[in-house]
Structures are given as structure tokens and as C-alpha cells.
């Protein structure tokens, strides 16, 4: 038995490595990313230059930082349609508390984090307690926050934005951490890009290497089965929603720190883009399968596509059509690669 098993294992090892790589959800996305890069690199020399890369990496990072927790939530079986508008809530909260109520900017950051975690908790609590689809619950939260963001901003500021955060004491240190740039090879890279890479690494490690990650896959794949074997599905789901809100806190405050100002309607419409990035990266809409690295690659593809179209000088009236087409191609390519890999496994 042992000799035979050893033989079989060796055989597996040879074929296995390649197949195993292809089957990973992020691999198809990676191939897509390479294709998109090569395509636009040919169209524009600026695109493939360091300064061009700094540009599309910046776009990708703002999508990517949200796409990672959104992907983890999707693997756990849920959607958060309020992920975009929460970015606004977070930045506006910090801005108003500091520049209108006189709070120290670090205290405001702390309070807005508590606020966002509460919102995430409410989302998760409602989803697990009512059993209603997360799509519906977070849609309600999305509409509610949209109204709150605008209403409160108008009430407090009489305008539709909160500005002048760059004038408060303590701003400059904050700017270095959240909004500043790092010089690499003579080009300035937004520091958010580094945060994005770090978050991806953490997210991937949590998914693949921890108990919590196992619970995420299980809760998304079959919540009933998971509950029956003692997986704390409610706790897992609520944690994932709170994680998404914490990421929204980070992105919203990065924005108000970097620009010194934030609009009331920020983030609306972005929630679908985060979901698209996650799906490009291999996450199943039905849950139980996906990858944080994949979502990051999806965000990368989105950023390269959006900026590539501008660098290539295509007529910008047709912009949305191009973006839609490239995204569809990316998802199809990913699916094709995965099907091929899965078939050859049998």
C-alpha cells in the first residue's frame, strides 16, 4: 500500500504543480492583467513608463483597498452594496468633527472608526438576525447613508462638501502616513499603494492560513453545514462586514487627508466596481470560493484599463463602453482558464 501510494503521489507531484497553479482563482486574473498591460503598453509609451505606472497603480490602489475585504465578504457569501457610500461617511465624519466641532484630528479619526465599525456591525447583525439577503439589507444601508451623508453635510456646512482639513493642527503628520508619496526610482508613488499591498498580503494570509479563513470559506460555501459542525457563522459574517467598514474608513480618510476636502456624494457607484474587481479575481457570486490576491489583480486590471484608455487617446465619449468590454473579456478569460484546468484534473 505504501509503495503504491508513494508512486501515485510522485505522479501527482509532476502534473500537479502546473494544474494546481492554473486552478487557483487568481491565476486566470493574472494572465488577464498581463494581457491588458501588454496591450496598452504597445499603445502608449507613457503608459509603460514609471510615471504612467505610478498613475494607474494609484487608481488601482483606491479600488484594491476596498476590493480585498469586499472579496473576503463575497467568499463568506455576502454582498455589501453600502461599501462605496461608507467611504464618504467616514471622511465626512472626520472632517465635520474636526473642522466644525473642534475635535483633535486624531480623536476624530478614532471616533469615525468607531462609527464605521458600528455601521458594519449593524449590517452584519441585520443580515444574520433577519436571514434576509445581504443584497437587500446593504441596499437599504446604501440609500440611508446616501441621504445621511448629504443631509448632515448640508445641515452642518450649508454646502455639499467638507473642506480645509489641511489647515488643522496635526495635519502634516497624518498626510505623510495617508496621503503622501514615496520616491521610487525617481518617480513619486502614492503611499496608499503600499498600504494596498500590505492589506492584500494580510487578507490573503487570513484567508488561506488561519482558522478564521477556513470559517469564511465554509460559511460562504454552506452555512448550514458549517453551523452544524460548530463553525461560528454569525460571528464570522459580522466580522467580515465590520472589516469592510474599517477599510471604507481607511479609504475615506485617505481621501480627505490627501485632498484636504471631501464631497458629500463620494463613493456612490463604486460599490459595483469593487464587486467586479472581486469577480474578475475569481470570486464566485454565490460564495465559498475566491481569493484576496485575485481581487487585487482585478483592481489592477480595472485601473490599467481605465487609465490605459486615456493614454491610448481613444475617444473619451465611448469610455464606459471600452471599460465594460474589457472587464467582460477579463472575466471570460479567467473562467476559461479555470474550466480548462478543472477538466484536465479529472
Amino acid at each position, binding site marked *: 500500500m505504501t509503495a503504491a501510494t508513494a508512486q501515485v503521489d510522485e505522479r501527482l507531484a509532476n502534473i500537479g504543480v502546473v494544474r494546481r497553479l492554473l486552478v487557483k482563482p487568481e491565476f486566470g486574473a493574472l494572465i488577464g492583467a498581463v494581457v491588458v498591460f501588454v496591450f496598452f503598453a504597445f499603445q502608449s509609451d507613457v503608459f509603460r513608463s514609471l510615471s504612467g505606472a505610478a498613475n494607474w497603480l494609484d487608481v488601482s490602489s483606491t479600488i484594491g483597498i476596498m476590493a480585498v475585504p469586499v472579496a473576503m465578504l463575497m467568499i463568506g457569501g455576502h454582498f455589501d452594496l453600502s461599501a462605496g457610500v461608507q467611504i464618504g461617511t467616514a471622511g465626512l465624519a472626520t472632517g465635520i468633527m474636526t473642522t466644525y466641532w*473642534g475635535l483633535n484630528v486624531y480623536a476624530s479619526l478614532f471616533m469615525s472608526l468607531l462609527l464605521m465599525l458600528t455601521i458594519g456591525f449593524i449590517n452584519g447583525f441585520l443580515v444574520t438576525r433577519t436571514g434576509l439577503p445581504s443584497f437587500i439589507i446593504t441596499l437599504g444601508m446604501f440609500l440611508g447613508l446616501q441621504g445621511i451623508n448629504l443631509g448632515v453635510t448640508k445641515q452642518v*456646512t450649508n454646502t455639499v462638501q467638507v*473642506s480645509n482639513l489641511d489647515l488643522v493642527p496635526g495635519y502634516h503628520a497624518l498626510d505623510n502616513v495617508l496621503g503622501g508619496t514615496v520616491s521610487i526610482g525617481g518617480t513619486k508613488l502614492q503611499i496608499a499603494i503600499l498600504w494596498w499591498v500590505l492589506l492584500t498580503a494580510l487578507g490573503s494570509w487570513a484567508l488561506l492560513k488561519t482558522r478564521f479563513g477556513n470559517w469564511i470559506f465554509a460559511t460562504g460555501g454552506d452555512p448550514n453545514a458549517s453551523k452544524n459542525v460548530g463553525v461560528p457563522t454569525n460571528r464570522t459574517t459580522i466580522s467580515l462586514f465590520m472589516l469592510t467598514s474599517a477599510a471604507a474608513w481607511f479609504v475615506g480618510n485617505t481621501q480627505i487627508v490627501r485632498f484636504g476636502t471631501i464631497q458629500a456624494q463620494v463613493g456612490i457607484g463604486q460599490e459595483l466596481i469593487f464587486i467586479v474587481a472581486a469577480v474578475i479575481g475569481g470570486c464566485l457570486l454565490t460564495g465559498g470560493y475566491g481569493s484576496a490576491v485575485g481581487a487585487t489583480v482585478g483592481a489592477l486590471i480595472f485601473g490599467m484599463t481605465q487609465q490605459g484608455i486615456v493614454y491610448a487617446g481613444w475617444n473619451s465619449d465611448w469610455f464606459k463602453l471600452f471599460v465594460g468590454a474589457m472587464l467582460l473579456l477579463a472575466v471570460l478569460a479567467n473562467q476559461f482558464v479555470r474550466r480548462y484546468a478543472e477538466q484536465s484534473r479529472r
Partner: protein
Amino acid sequence: MIRRVPRTSLAAVFAAAILVSACSSANSVNVQHNKAGGGSGGYKYKIAVVTHGGAGDSFWSIVKAGALQGGKDMGDKVSYQSSGDPATQSQLIDAAINQKPDGLVVSMANPEAVKAAVKRAVAAGIPVITINAGEAESKSYGALSHIGSDEGVAGQAVGSELKKNGVKNVICVVQEAGNTALEQRCAGVKATLGGTVTNLQVDNNNLPGAQQIIQAKLQQDKSVDGVVTLGAQVASVAEKAIASANSSAKLATFDLNADVAKGVVDGKLLFAVDQQPYLQGYLGVVMLTQYKSNLNVLGGGQPVLTGPTLITKANAAAVLKLAAGGTR
């Protein structure tokens, strides 16, 4: 669950301690200074304002502020509704008509779509004033008067001013796809610039993305020496994009807010063209009040123009204070 309670209350105590120690007037840089005085008029008319403005748009927020202040000063009751979708705006007008107001203020970005509703208001004996857009159709629909600024004329003013400053190759940043007023502005610029004007689409709801797009365009095409934005919020990000792209392009914008005024003061923007949205809202309410009480009509059959007015380094500093209060 039981384990959690002490942790939460610890956090609450911690937070309270920070709050108590952290309040300081040095932080509140935005304390409101526009304590709008109430007027002494006691006309008590009901005025309905229905515009096509988007909810989060800084321009329309100023129109609304003007309309509401007009109501306060006249002693009228003013209601403000808006929708960017013409069909919805039509329904809002009908809803307003049902409440039998003493006057109606309407903006017509898509005159055909709201024609029927406006005519119904006129037929019901409600005096109508149009503002901001729809100047050409205003009289034929039966409105008393039109208050606004011609987009084409404003565009031409921008084009001429840029030409004066030696700008030859302009990108015109359109932040709302399909908005005819914005397209008219770009067309106006093209008419008088005497150089090249290329439109560039961005999304008003994703300003950081807009910055990246403008930056990319400037990096790609080094011959661009002028950027025109059609909204105050976009102007701020265009400013940053120009800096990041190390471009020497000159920036000008339509419409005004505090950041734009600051930019003109600092020399980051050449100028801003303002159509005084506050006046459009304010005068709409005031003119209806005067008509109802005294049958006064302003304009002599011609539109009442609120712009274009140029905000340059000369007058920007004074305007800045007012813009911060949301009235300019």
C-alpha cells in the same frame, strides 16, 4: 458575548477621555459665518422650486440656499425639489401644481420633457419663472421671465479670456455625460479660442478617479497648455492633476466654490466664470413675490442675466469668504 461588555465600556471611557481633552477651537477652521438674517417681509406666499440639479452638486446647493434665503427675506414659504432625470422632474412639477402654490420656479435642462408640466402650471393660473436653463423655450411655454446665463455666451467669454492668456490647446473636462449645458460650454470655448479644444469625460461622483484621468491625459499629450473644467468640484482635482503631471497648463473653470476662489487667489487658477447661482434662486423667489403682490415683471421681455461674471485675482479674495458660507 459576556466577555465583550467590559471591553466595550473600556473603549467608551477611553473615547470619552480623548474627546474631553481634544476639543480645541484651533481645530474648528470651518465655523459657520453665514448667519443668514431673516427678512421682515410678511408676504406668506407658497413658492415651489423644482430644478434639474443633482443632489450633491455644489452649484445647485447654492441655488437652493439662495431660494431659501429669498423665502426668508420675503416671508414666503419655499419648497425645493430636484431631479436630474427629466421624467422625474416632470412628476415633481405636477406634484407641486397639486399643492396649489402661489408661484413656481423651474429650471429646464430638457425643455421638451417638462413642457407639458410647465404648460399645465400656466393653465392652472400659477405664475412660472424659469431659471438657469431653457431660455429659448421660456416665453413660448408661458413663463413670466427667465433668469440665468447663456452657456454658449459664457463659453465664449472663457475662450476669449484664455486666448488673451496665450492658450492654444485646451482639454474641456465634462463631468456629467450627456449634460447639454456642459456641452454648450465646451462648444462656446471652441468658438472663440482659435485653437484646439478636446472634450474629456470624467465622473463627478469619483473625483480622485477624475484627477487620475486628467493627469494621464496631460502626461500623454504634452502639447496641452490649457484645462477648462465645467464644475467647481472638478476644478480642485484638475489643479492637483496639473501639479502631479508637472504640466505648465493653465487652468480655468466655470462655477465657483470656496476652493476655486482660494485657487484663484493663490494663482493656481487663471480665473473662474461665475453665473451667480445664488441670485438665480433668490431672484426667482423675489420676482414671483413681486408679481403676486404688485404685478411687477422684470426683464422687459428679455432674460435677466446673472452672468457670466469673471472672478480673477482682483476680486477673488473677497469672494472667498462668501463662498465658504455656501452663498457664492
